[in-house]
Every structure is written in structure tokens, then in C-alpha cells.
């Protein structure tokens, strides 16, 4: 009996120590790879910042939807607040919706709601508490955008543009991708990368 107790104690200590010493990040290999451009994205339902479940199909745009993984505290994500809101406003009339996704375990729904109000983000924001959508899309950082057409086909994945600094934008990759798709043209650069804050996964 004593041996069994010691075994349980030792196992418990090892588990606790393992959890403490392990870093909070995940190796690149542990984050699922993003779907290939052209892949169909499954329908999903996530809670909004008030805790109400919202189905993607009830929010998506007729001509496409931009999903952007965003964060409350990430300065890179925050550098794009005005640009993201402007994007949502500019493309609403063109049948393209913008949806923010917050998959950071460190940002609770109330904080996300307050942050959106303070920063003037009027587009819907969903919480991804178990990182199900982030895992499905292979999202690893904020901001990270996905443009999906009206039939849920992934057309663009990556950065919003090339620079956090609005004065240094040289390549408006996300807007160019949307404009090409809306104009029936092939998207020249369907993937583009930039630096960002890693998503604090649950």
C-alpha cells in the first residue's frame, strides 16, 4: 500500500514538474499545417464575445469572408486595428465580410469585447477557446488572415500587408487578393508572411 502511495506521489510530482518546466509554446511541428490554397473550409460555430454561439454561415459574406486571428495585447495585431476596421467597412458593400477570431487563451471574452469597443472594431469577433479553428486553419500568430470565397474555398492565407508601419506599406497583399477574386482574376500571391505574436494556445 505504502509503495503504491509513493508511486502515486512520484508520478504526481513528475507530472507537475513536467508541466512547469515545459514552455508555453508549441513546436512548429505540433501546430497543424495550414490547409492548401483551394481547400474547402468546413462550416464552424464559435461563441461571440457575449458567449452566444454564432455559425460561420450566418456571418459570412455573399462574395467571401476574411477571417483574421487577432489579439488584445499583441502590438502587431493592434497596429492593424484601424486597417482591419477600414477593410471591413470598404468591403461590406462588395459582399465580403470580416470576422475577427481571438484564439488566445490569455484573452477572455469580456476583455476581447472591451478591447474591440476601445479600439473601434465593429466587425464581429468570435472566441476560439479550444483553438479548434486555429488548429483547423493552422493559424500560429496574430494578425493572420484567411480569405475564403462564398463557397468556402480558401483563396488567400497570410499577412494583411508587408509592414506594421502604415507609412511603409508596399504590398497590400490581402486587399489585392480580395480585389482579384472579386474581379474574377487569379490571385497573384495567394500566400504571404510577416512577423507576428504567437497565438497563446489553450
Amino acid at each position, binding site marked *: 500500500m*505504502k*509503495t503504491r502511495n*509513493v*508511486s502515486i*506521489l*512520484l508520478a504526481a*510530482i*513528475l507530472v507537475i*514538474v513536467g508541466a512547469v*518546466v*515545459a*514552455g*508555453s*509554446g*508549441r*513546436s*512548429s*511541428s505540433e*501546430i497543424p*499545417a*495550414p490547409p492548401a490554397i483551394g481547400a474547402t473550409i468546413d462550416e464552424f460555430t464559435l461563441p461571440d464575445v457575449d458567449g452566444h454561439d454564432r455559425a460561420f454561415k450566418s456571418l459570412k459574406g455573399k462574395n467571401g469572408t476574411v477571417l483574421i486571428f487577432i489579439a488584445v*495585447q499583441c*502590438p*502587431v495585431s493592434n497596429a492593424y486595428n484601424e486597417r482591419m476596421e477600414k477593410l471591413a467597412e470598404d468591403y461590406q458593400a462588395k459582399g465580403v465580410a470580416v470576422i475577427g477570431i481571438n484564439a488566445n487563451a490569455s484573452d477572455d471574452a469580456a476583455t476581447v469585447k472591451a478591447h474591440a469597443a476601445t479600439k473601434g472594431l465593429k466587425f464581429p469577433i468570435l472566441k476560439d477557446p479550444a483553438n479548434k479553428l486555429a488548429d483547423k486553419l493552422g493559424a*500560429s*500568430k496574430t494578425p*493572420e488572415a484567411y480569405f475564403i470565397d462564398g463557397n468556402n474555398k480558401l483563396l488567400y492565407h497570410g*499577412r494583411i500587408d*508587408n*509592414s*506594421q*508601419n502604415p507609412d*511603409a506599406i*508596399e*504590398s497590400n497583399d490581402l486587399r489585392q487578393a480580395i480585389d482579384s477574386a472579386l474581379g474574377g482574376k487569379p490571385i497573384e500571391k495567394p500566400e*504571404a*508572411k*510577416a*512577423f*507576428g*505574436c*504567437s*497565438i*497563446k494556445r489553450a
Partner: protein
Amino acid sequence: MRFSHNLLSVGLIVLLASFAVPAQRKSRTARRAKPAPAKVSVEAINTDALKVLIAKPKDKPLLVSFWATWCDPCRDEFPDLVKIDKDYRPQSLDFVTISLDEVADIKTSVPAFLSQMKATMPAYLLDVKDPEPAINAVDPRWQGDLPATFLYNAKGEIIYKHVGRVNTVELREAIEKLIKN
């Protein structure tokens, strides 16, 4: 029964002792006189120079940390990285840090933070208009999320990589394995 009980007890003591050793080392270090913070200079690096830095033939392994002052987990992990540099540089490890801050910060917040951390490894700041070629040059599978840590062998091959706050146990194991081989 008794033997297995004893074995488990010994295991428990060894485990606890292994955590006590770093604490002892820390207290010894703390007793030493504190040196004045070193003046840190940060060098701008472009994509081509970065490619050369990581791919050139080396006589020892190279650890590269991509970070930024605006990145909370980057700042949080920095003391661990400084400790790793101090522990392994004498055992043939090169370590460089590459900041993704704005170029305007190259003489201000970046060296100030490094100096505060007592970081003495060579420090660079990526000076590019488009970050994508640099990200892909480091690892085409990397999306650019920070912090990111890459360990290269002497041939310039990635032996270990991690995004998010570094896992020091894993990283130290990877370094030791590389140094021993």
C-alpha cells in the same frame, strides 16, 4: 516490495536534488560582485546577410533567437536564453539574437533591453522592407510567429526549432546532444 519502495524513494530524492542544484548555483552567483552592464551594440542585418549567417559552414553549432521588444513571451524567455549562452558558449556554442523591432529602435529600446538582460551574445536587427524572404530563408514552414528559436549544426542544418516561449529543458537537451556529437 521493500526494494521497489527504496528504489522509488531514491528516485524521489534524486529528482528533488536535481532541482536543488541550479538553486545552489544561483545563490553562489548572487554572492559575486555584480559587473557593470556591458554596452550593447546591435547590428542591422538584411536577408542576404541572414542567409549567410545561418548557412555558412561553421566550426560549432549555432543557436538563433528571433525576438522583439514588443513580444511579451520573447522578453519573458530572455533571462533563460542569457543563461543558456553563459552555460554553453564555453562549450562551443555560438548564439546570436535577431530582433524584429523597427529599425528606429536599433540604438534605443533594443540595446537598452539587451543591456538590462546582461545579454552579451552578438545582436542583430532585421532591416528589411518585406519580411517574407527572411522568414522563408530561415524555415519555409515558419509563419513568422515570435519568439522563435532555431538550433543549427555545423553544416547549417536545423536540428531543433521551437516557436513560442522556449522550452529550456528541450533546448538544453538538443544543445548537449549536438555538442557531444
